[in-house]
């Protein structure tokens, strides 16, 4: 479990995160959503110990990530948005760097590379951006870590790879792992990320499971206009409308509509979801 308390961070005079308090539980794949520049990457780098908190604390099962205790580091992986095109084959990269992660599994790396139709014998510097990204995703999953942080992992992936990525996230992750994925491509990760965290300038607007979201909000996909809808967007064949779920009806959560609803009704949403 990762317990974040009153976390604050700023770049010089510019505050990025302020008073962030939330808990990340094991066995979940959290989706971190937020507009450009709200601090998603900053939050990920704080969680993996690349940056030190300016205020508050991060407690990862008793560790402060910034202490960078080697045994702790070998049980976490951070996949950044930008990945390095090393002058070696993917296989050689896995052979040499896999050692840093105690539970690194070479067979799993080869298997996932196969699923992505990525050649492990190819030099990383000769790979396309998408191929390189897939190599790092395969490596990240093969590390078998308890904590996995991914920054925009589906950026640059072609269409078939996105589906393979979703399947791999279920098949190749540990049951006891804490996974946090930041993304703008909510459609790429639909059905995979749950709970959903929405980060706004310096603040967490929402941290809730899809079950909780669909208990409290109702997503209507009909052609009939609803008067007191919190959000309405026209789509081919009707509207997506979001209302409070006062009658405990079931509906499918649409992540884009959710994101926009939360942004238009920040205080209301925070009120509804705070227990």
């Amino acid at each position, binding site marked *: 479990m990762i317990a974040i308390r009153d976390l604050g961070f700023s770049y010089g005079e510019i505050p990025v995160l302020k008073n962030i308090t939330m808990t990340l539980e094991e*066995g*979940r*794949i959290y989706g971190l959503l937020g507009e450009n520049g709200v601090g998603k990457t900053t939050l990920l780098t704080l969680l993996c110990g690349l940056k030190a908190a300016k205020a508050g604390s991060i407690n990862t099962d008793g560790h402060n990530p910034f202490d960078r205790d080697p045994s702790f580091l070998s049980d976490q992986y951070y996949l950044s948005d930008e990945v390095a095109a090393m002058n070696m084959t993917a296989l050689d990269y896995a052979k040499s760097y896999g050692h840093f992660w105690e539970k690194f599994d070479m067979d799993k790396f080869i298997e996932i590379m196969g699923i992505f139709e990525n050649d492990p014998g190819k030099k990383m510097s000769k790979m396309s951006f998408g191929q390189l990204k897939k190599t790092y995703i395969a490596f990240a999953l093969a590390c078998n870590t308890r904590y996995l942080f991914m920054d925009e992992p589906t950026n640059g992936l072609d269409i078939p790879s996105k*589906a393979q990525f*979703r*399947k*791999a996230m*279920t*098949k190749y992750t540990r*049951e006891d792992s804490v996974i946090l994925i930041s993304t703008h491509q909510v459609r790429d990760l639909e*059905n*995979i*990320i*749950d709970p959903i965290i929405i980060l706004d300038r310096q603040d967490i607007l929402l941290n809730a*499971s*899809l*079950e909780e979201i*669909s208990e409290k909000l109702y*997503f209507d*996909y009909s052609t009939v206009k609803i008067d007191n809808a919190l959000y309405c967007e026209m789509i081919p064949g009707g509207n997506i409308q979001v209302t409070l779920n006062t009658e405990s009806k*079931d*509906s*499918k*959560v649409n992540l884009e509509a959710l994101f926009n609803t939360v942004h238009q009704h920040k205080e209301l949403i925070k009120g509804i979801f705070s227990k």
Partner: protein
Amino acid sequence: MEFNSNKSIYLQICDAIYEHILSGELGPDSRIPSVREYGAEIGVNPNTVMRSYEKLTNEGVIYNKRGIGYFISRNAQAIVLQTMRDDFMNNELPQIIRKMELLGISFEDFYQQTHATASESSPQSL
């Protein structure tokens, strides 16, 4: 597996399993994939599949053998038939009736059409 309906994903997973039970593809005591296997197959978060399996367990459609997996109950077909019939009567039929009213289709038209379709598809009429 395509998720186009407006039902939440965990209910769509239940519907898919219901249909496999009704079609006989999943017979009594046959094993269904683990939460993780099924999640990986259809690209869905394991917790979502877990929620579907919990619902099916509560309904008596599947049962859990600890450490072995989930299996189809002996009377699953009867339970599913009842559940799906209720769902059709309470949710789908009212929608069909609403649409018939909108399009001005009478029950007489409806009866004739279904009767014609039924005799077309029955081999005796050939």
